[in-house]
């Protein structure tokens, strides 16, 4: 496009081309209007969800935490903390006795906590 006249004509054409509002969208808007109209006994919640906006808000929330990798790290840390909190610490008894000087020989040392409790029913 070489001159402004053509661009102006194109923009004017766009301005004169109305965007058609679908009847479904009009219905959604009017349902919302009825739902929150003051003094009317309707639910305050919108009757139609807006999936794209919901996805945007979730994306903003995840980004606020530092993105997907940060969320994965946070989840792993939470799961590890839960495991360490629930697992039986008796497996460290031999290390405790060694440090306390109550024994001088340790044949076998398992530094991981016992997981038996996780598989026990009731």
């Amino acid at each position: 496009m070489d001159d402004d006249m053509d661009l102006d004509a194109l923009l004017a054409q766009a301005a004169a081309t109305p965007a058609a509002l679908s009847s479904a969208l009009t219905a959604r808007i009017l349902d919302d209007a009825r739902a929150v109209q003051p003094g009317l006994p309707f639910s305050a919640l919108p009757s139609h969800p807006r999936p794209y906006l919901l996805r945007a808000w979730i994306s903003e929330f995840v980004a606020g935490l530092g993105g997907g990798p940060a969320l994965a790290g946070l989840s792993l840390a939470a799961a590890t903390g839960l495991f360490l909190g629930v697992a039986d610490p008796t497996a460290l008894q031999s290390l405790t006795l060694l440090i306390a000087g109550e024994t001088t020989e340790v044949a076998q040392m398992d530094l991981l906590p016992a997981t038996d409790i996780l598989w026990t029913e009731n």
Partner: protein
Amino acid sequence: MPRDPLDEVSDETLLALYADGNAVAARLLTQRVAPRVFGYATRLLADRAEAEDVTQEAMMRLWRIAPQWRAGEAQISTWLYRVVTNLCTDLKRASRRRPGVALDDAPEVAATSASAVSTLMQADRMTALQRALDQLPERQRQAVVLRHIEGLTNPQIAQIMDLGVEAVESLTARGKRALAALLAGRKADLGYDDDADEREAV
């Protein structure tokens, strides 16, 4: 068909009537302002479904603010343009973080009495314009659409975009120059050579 007396009242009065529980006011106000809101959102997002969501959300915010609306402080249309601008900015920011989102849905062209070829040409021009608009930086696109398609004044745009009038003038001018450059190679494709020939013949 008898005219509805509410057809004559201002947007602001319709919003006040809605806040007072008038059932017809919401329909009339939706008919008046929602197509402009939707058109603007479609130009910014180039995705019909997302533009519909933004339109619904902007209108919902209008319904919710209706009881607190202070007459004379702002125009409803300007307020809505500002809400849509912010919603679209948030949505664009979020979609940049989502891979593989297709943004290729120009607004539909309303049927006219022109010939089929002319209608197709018009649709091609609108699609080309939309694609060029999509390539502009976000703030330039907002300014160009508000100034040259929505027909707002620079002070109104400054209010909507939270900028000074001079910044708006600069954004609009740079956006229009960039738009012309993006469309420069497509003059013949879009039938502007034919139009020039017709003008010369006349």
